[in-house]
């Protein structure tokens, strides 16, 4: 079997284990922490109604049987129906998906547009007042949780200045505040990592050699240090994608942005477990796929990986 096919099989196994682990954990926690029929029935359900729910969802069977049938229906991508409106849970999760994808893409773009130039500047510049000040600014910004940034932005731009709408999902004007809020999760972290990468590359032996041969500072930075440092950015983006998902949950709820995060919080507060399960699986799978894509792109871009197998370039938290 070729190496590619083997890698593909290993990848499939990992995805399978991830999904199996997540669903199993969710299933048993749901059963361990109480009778789902009582939760599903709501506070004012009668005993007869609870019995009916038990029969309908098969909760009167043994735990092992329940688990088996749960896994079988998952294999057919059947997550059950939303308890709120009876639509299939998976369809509900997938309908909310594009809005989240838009926000995640915009935020990633905004974060990279800020972080790459800033990180390169910080990493390439020698110590000085301006550099120290910018580093402090980045450090302080890192202390601001995304939802605090969002609240401050709403206060300033929507309430005081009334330039932008405070919430909603209707055209580019409503995109700005959520994008900046999610990007604020990432930009400081990314900036510090890029700074470390660039200054690390500038200190490396091959740059010293280039300098010794007579390359100018500018040449060294643009032709030798940067390409190498920015290769690492790809893996940073992968590592940060998880934070974007976290950001989405909070920021979407804050801005009433009809994406996956908003739906997750809605379903959680309504105890709509089928939808919560479907969303969890969709998110886990998406993050996994994005990471695979990035790994693959890196593998194509960086010849060192092809020779020595995957090594983590700058994959630090």
């Amino acid at each position, binding site marked *: 079997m070729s190496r590619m096919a083997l890698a593909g099989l290993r990848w499939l196994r990992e995805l399978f284990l991830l999904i199996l*682990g997540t669903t199993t954990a969710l299933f048993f926690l749901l059963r361990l922490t109480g009778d789902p029929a009582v939760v599903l029935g709501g506070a004012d359900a009668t005993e007869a109604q609870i019995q009916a729910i038990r029969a309908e969802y098969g909760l009167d069977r043994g735990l092992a049987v329940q688990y088996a049938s749960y896994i079988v229906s998952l294999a057919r991508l059947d997550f059950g129906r939303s308890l709120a409106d009876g639509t299939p849970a998976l369809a509900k999760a997938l309908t909310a998906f594009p809005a989240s994808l838009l926000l995640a893409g915009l935020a990633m773009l905004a974060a990279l547009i800020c972080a790459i130039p800033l990180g390169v500047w910080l990493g390439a510049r020698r110590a000085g007042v301006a550099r120290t000040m910018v580093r402090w600014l980045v450090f302080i910004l890192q202390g601001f949780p995304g939802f605090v940034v969002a*609240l401050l932005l709403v206060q300033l731009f929507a309430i005081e200045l009334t330039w932008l709408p405070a919430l909603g999902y209707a055209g580019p004007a409503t995109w700005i505040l959520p994008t900046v809020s999610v990007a604020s999760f990432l930009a400081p972290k990314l900036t510090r990592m890029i700074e470390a990468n660039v200054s690390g590359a500038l200190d490396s032996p091959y740059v010293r050699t280039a300098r010794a041969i007579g390359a100018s500072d500018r040449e060294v930075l643009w032709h030798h240090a940067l390409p190498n440092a920015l290769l690492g950015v790809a893996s940073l983006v992968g590592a940060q994608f998880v934070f974007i*998902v*976290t950001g989405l949950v909070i920021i979407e709820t804050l801005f009433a942005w009809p994406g996956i995060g908003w739906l997750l919080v809605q379903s959680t507060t309504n105890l709509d477990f089928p939808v919560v399960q479907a969303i969890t699986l969709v998110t886990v799978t998406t993050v996994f796929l994005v990471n695979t894509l990035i790994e693959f792109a890196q593998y194509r871009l960086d010849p060192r990986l092809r020779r020595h197998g995957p090594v983590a370039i700058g994959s630090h938290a």
Partner: protein
Amino acid sequence: MSAIAEVSPASPESLRSSNWELWAGGVLLTCIVVLAVFGPAIAVHDARFVDLDHRFVPPFSPGFALGTDQLGRDLVARILRGLRWSFATALCATLLASVIGTALGLLAARSRSLLGKTIRQMTALAQSFPVFVLAISLVAVVGNGFLAVASILGLVTWPVFCRIVQAEAQSLFAREYVIAAEMLRMSALRLYVRHILPGLVASLSVVVPFHFADMLIAESALSFLGIGAPLGAATWGNMLQESRSYLLTAPWLMLVPAAAVVSLVISANLLGDGLRRRLA
């Protein structure tokens, strides 16, 4: 691994500034701990005392240093009460995650059994796992409250520690003094207590402050979403959530808890950065 591994050698300048960061973070956090422990006792007003005659008093008013909220409750008292909640939750979550992560990391560093393999696989996968989503689903299932939130946050974030301990322990087991101790048939318990755990202290104490900050943000985010703390309890997340209805008329209801969250997170980050420069 984390950025710990790639800190440039300390120049005299960075050594000075590292001491400064370490001290600033340490002093700030100590003050915050003192406030968390004694604050609610020395506060003039009670955090739950509803005083409808003094609603929306702006900050810096006589008697109400940070103002009052929509029910006339004193913000100083509520911030201190929220501090206690946030601090305790984040600390318990961090301790739980570090204990589980260290134990499993030590196991994974040595074990060739299925268990060791499973742990290694799990930590690798956890790097690309949206932990917060899992935490939300679990809170939905388990219910809210201090114990639930602290243990869920601890239980979903232990891979952070596991990964670091595993890498560090693997390199420790390759050191001469550990190999020598093993050859001398030192008991496993003694080996771990005398040689392995002390070697882990430096990297663990760097991770703890950063993890604490992360847990703090996660906790306040959960209670901001209305699924972490009991509704109406004086926590920073709840206060921020409630403040959203009064952004136009009483912005301090948002600004005061926001400042509290930010200063606690920055203090923890300062301590972490200082420790990193000092120990790594």
